[in-house]
């Protein structure tokens, strides 16, 4: 799932072939209820956010209230990829390969400022936001986000899953890396990775 590459669907086009009737809506409710309450996370824990992720999985902030205590370290059984921590360029092909190897339906949570936008690391080695590598559903701000913040992100994802329908094939598209070797068009990546805030004039070293 994730952002469709082609941007917003133009108005007036026929969105889904099967019009929602009594059967599909009941079926949607059933599958979404099942999927929402048993999201098996693939904890792609790289840095400090991974420690907060472990803290939220431990007994005080217990993730198993959301049915998420079963950590699946192999992408084959994973439903939601939680990128907890900063992502250097050396790790970009790894997360891309793991995301491709996860079966549909799959979602992605970008936990922490470094995963969502490169955070304080506007350097030669840091991906400025993992949405330039994989499609992301929920961004959790914070450095590191408190366990409550992560859980709020998870409940947002669950609301998003509630709104999905089986009839729409567009939701379950695989957004692969294009033939020119990029996930998003080049100008889009440069626009996303543009330094902002005080990162703009930080290059004065003396």
């Amino acid at each position, binding site marked *: 799932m994730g952002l469709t590459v082609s941007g917003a669907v133009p108005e007036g086009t026929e969105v889904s072939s099967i019009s929602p009737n009594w059967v599909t809506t009941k079926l949607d409710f059933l599958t979404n209820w099942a999927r929402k309450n048993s999201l098996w996370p693939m904890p792609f824990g790289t840095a400090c956010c991974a420690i907060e992720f472990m803290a939220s999985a431990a007994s005080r902030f217990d993730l198993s209230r959301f049915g998420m205590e079963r950590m699946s370290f192999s992408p084959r059984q994973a439903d939601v990829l939680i990128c907890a921590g900063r992502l250097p360029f050396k790790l970009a092909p790894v997360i891309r390969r793991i995301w491709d190897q996860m079966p549909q339906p799959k979602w992605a949570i970008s936990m922490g400022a470094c995963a969502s936008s490169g955070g304080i690391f506007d350097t030669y080695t840091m991906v400025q936001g993992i949405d330039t590598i994989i499609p992301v559903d929920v961004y959790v701000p914070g450095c590191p986000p408190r366990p409550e913040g992560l859980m709020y992100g998870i409940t947002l994802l669950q609301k998003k899953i509630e709104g999905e329908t089986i009839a729409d094939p567009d939701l379950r598209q695989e957004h692969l890396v294009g033939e020119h070797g990029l996930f998003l068009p080049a100008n889009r990546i*440069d626009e996303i990775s543009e330094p902002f805030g005080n990162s703009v004039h930080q*290059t004065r070293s003396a």
Partner: protein
Amino acid sequence: MTASTASLSPSVAALREKFGAAITRHAVSCGDTIVHVSNERAHEALAWLRDEPTQRFDYLTDLTAVEYRDVERALEVVYQLRSIERKADLRVKIELDKTAPLVVDSVVDLWKGADWLEREVYDMFGVRFRGHPDLRRILMWDTYAEGHPLRKDFPLRGHFSRAEQTRQALSANPEAQYSLEELSIAEAYEELPADMRERLRRGERGDVG
């Protein structure tokens, strides 16, 4: 900092008397003694410092390099030595002229801990270590083509645009993830695509040099 002779380590006098001209100069900064050694006899001096019964600097605390902001000042390779029984510290520096190729003798035969430290200095500064068993990049991936990041002429965000950096990262193929040694162990040489085999044959592995 005044070069107060009180905190000057006795090793400096012993070094001067043993190596004479090879010890270019010494100084004291914030209580630590610094000795500058010439590049040719550096390995010999370090071996002497380690094996000499009166010195016994058997613990290599750190090995790094420093490049100053003004261009004509030399790039320094810094050895931080410590003797565990004598609880004494000493900082040995080798100055390298930036215009000439940066090559230093490796000290992996003296201290095994220097293996990864030297690989990191090579990766970050481009200083080659003669005699190092496996001098490869350690922090960046092997086919990293942007140069050596910690040099002062290397921009903070890297040379290429973010899109180009992402494309290079995403198109990393097995040759960037595995070292030559592992490729040969897995006998996977035939499976690599032809252009990669060609690059391997020429030995050009993203080494800007």
